[in-house]
């Protein structure tokens, strides 16, 4: 039997789609989220559809002190860890209420970095495994409209890049995923251009393929690579005057 795939943030739309994708390939699945009771229906669903074993685990990304014991109590060490955890706090509210900003930064950077660091040590020692972090194109350049979110994702992207550098010789793959816009709960109600917006399923497919092909960094829709090249390239004096 294959070693399982662990999904951190498994109640999210992306987490659910990723679980379906890997279960369809016959991987056993470990689902982790803060409210573990909400994972029970997904467990049943994956088991009936794909006949793979599924376990559920309580995981709070902000409770970093519990992360080491979280890893220890897993019944089996996963082959692949996919961290989907994240949130998009309201930028305007964050500017006024910094505790909100802080929670956002901890959820998008600190927590994911801590848990993946701990897994990295385990994986490095045993010499195989894959760590996947869902970061964001918003981390490529800070913008007035969401720089608390963006800066945390920038941190996470840099963290993943460093981790990949460190683990390059150990046989552990580190994959950075930059999804661009995705139709999820987080973006519900926003007017998003359909050519730039992926379905959660597309993200799941992209991740699956990227792991098979041993990729390092992927944009889910290729067009985003070029959009971000452009956005990074705009000189600061001009950038300041744009509303983005």
């Amino acid at each position, binding site marked *: 039997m294959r070693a399982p795939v662990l999904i951190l943030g498994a109640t999210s739309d992306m987490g659910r789609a990723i679980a379906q994708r890997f279960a369809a390939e016959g991987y056993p699945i470990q689902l982790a989220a803060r409210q573990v009771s909400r994972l029970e229906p997904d467990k049943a669903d994956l088991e009936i559809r794909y006949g793979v074993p599924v376990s559920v685990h309580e995981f709070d990304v902000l409770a970093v002190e519990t992360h080491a014991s979280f890893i220890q109590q897993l019944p089996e060490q996963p082959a692949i860890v996919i961290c989907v955890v994240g949130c998009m706090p309201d930028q305007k509210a964050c500017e006024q209420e910094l505790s909100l900003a802080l929670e956002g930064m901890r959820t998008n950077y600190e927590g994911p970095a801590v848990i993946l660091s701990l897994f990295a040590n385990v994986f490095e020692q045993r010499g195989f495994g894959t760590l996947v972090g869902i970061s964001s194109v918003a981390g490529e350049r800070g913008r007035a409209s969401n720089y608390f979110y963006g800066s945390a994702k920038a941190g996470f992207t840099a963290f993943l890049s460093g981790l990949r550098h460190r683990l390059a010789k150990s046989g552990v793959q580190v994959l950075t995923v930059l999804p661009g816009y995705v139709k999820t709960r987080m973006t519900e*109600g926003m007017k998003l251009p359909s050519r730039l917006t992926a379905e959660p399923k597309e993200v799941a497919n992209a991740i699956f393929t990227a792991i098979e092909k041993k990729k390092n960094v992927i944009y889910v829709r290729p067009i985003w690579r070029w959009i971000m090249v452009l956005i990074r390239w705009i000189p600061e004096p001009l950038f300041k005057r744009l509303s983005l």
Partner: protein
Amino acid sequence: MSSPMTPRGSLKTLCGWGRYPVQTCHVYCPRSESEIIQLLKSGLLLIARGNGRAYGDSALNREATLQMHHFNRLLGFNPRTGQLIAEAGVLLAEILEIFVPRGWFPLITPGTKFVTVGGMIAADVHGKNHHKEGSFVHSLDWLDLLTSEGQIYRCSPSENQDLFYWTVGGMGLTGVILRAAFRLRPIKTAWIRQTTRIAKHLDEVIDLFEAAQDVTYSVAWIDCLATGSRLGRSVLMLGEHATREELPAKYRQRPLWTPRRRKISIPVDFPNGALNALTVRAFNQLYFLNSQRKAGQSFVDWDTFFYPLDSLLGWNRIYGRRGFVQFQCVLPLSTAREGLLALLHCTSAAGAGSFLAVLKKLGDQQGYFSFPMAGYTLALDFPMSQRTLKVLDQLEEITLQYGGRFYLAKDSHLSPMRLRQSDARVETFVKVRNAQQWTVNFASEQSKRLCL
């Protein structure tokens, strides 16, 4: 991620499968029960929507339409009893894809697989076996309903019985169906042993239906443009689940496997009027001749037998941008022959024949507000136009005259008056809706139009 959040709504242009009427609606896509409860508490008048396969305005509400597609989990399956527990937004197509290869088939299925569990319950759908095995409620063990007060009730024939029988066929107007348990039947093969019979006129097809009482599946395609002595000429298709021994040798090795059907997408809207009396007449003639050639026994895969139109993805576009309306009524056994003649006369005289005309014998009904009754049901569709509206008026009048009633899942045209004239149960349904305060939270554009 903080939860539960109140789901954010967005404005979307929605319509039913007939693409008429089109309505701009506030759409919500809840992911949990608590999100729906919050919407209810905010006092919104809402309707749940599955895959939008009702033809008219049953699953539209301008104020709040709840898209239930996130409720798409299978929760349990008992291989001893065939009982499947599923959330309301699960598509029948997914169930078939998973369970046919394992030797199970829905006890009751409508004529498309692109419907959700919730939608099948709300319309209490019927299939080709209704005369023998009843509508969806006959396969339903229980359902969980979220009602006005934000309470969830488990409803079954023995628990919250009234709520159960008002909800099946209740068109989503009693609450939001969350999940349900219903039964699949064991099958030995994925094939149907089909017998095709040609009937030269209406009397003959009815005689054939009556003689085929014991056959599990039966349905007739009827040429509604034929006139005179050929009025009502039909192709009757009878079917039974094939056993392994019956199958041709090439399929016997893997009896639950069927070759994948080629899917064709209709990529663009046909011009309005592309389906006219001429093209439909030509189509019907070809279909009839082709069936005559194939009359007799054959083995047909489940997908082709039960869901012939599903391989034409987006077939509703052939009616052009104005959309189409479907008319489906049922006439009681005592008046069926006469009444059907009158309906067919009216259709062929108007030259407005639909290329999809279906005749089917129905059996008795359980649900308090479900469509079927013992008799014959006729379904026709027409491209939307001013003339079509006139034909519909005539067809509705004829249905009333012969004591028939109408299928709300297909309707986009009835008036409150006609509905009440056709169906004495309407008044009771409205009374119960008021008494139970379902009217406070649940309404569709259809229920508003029909004053339900």
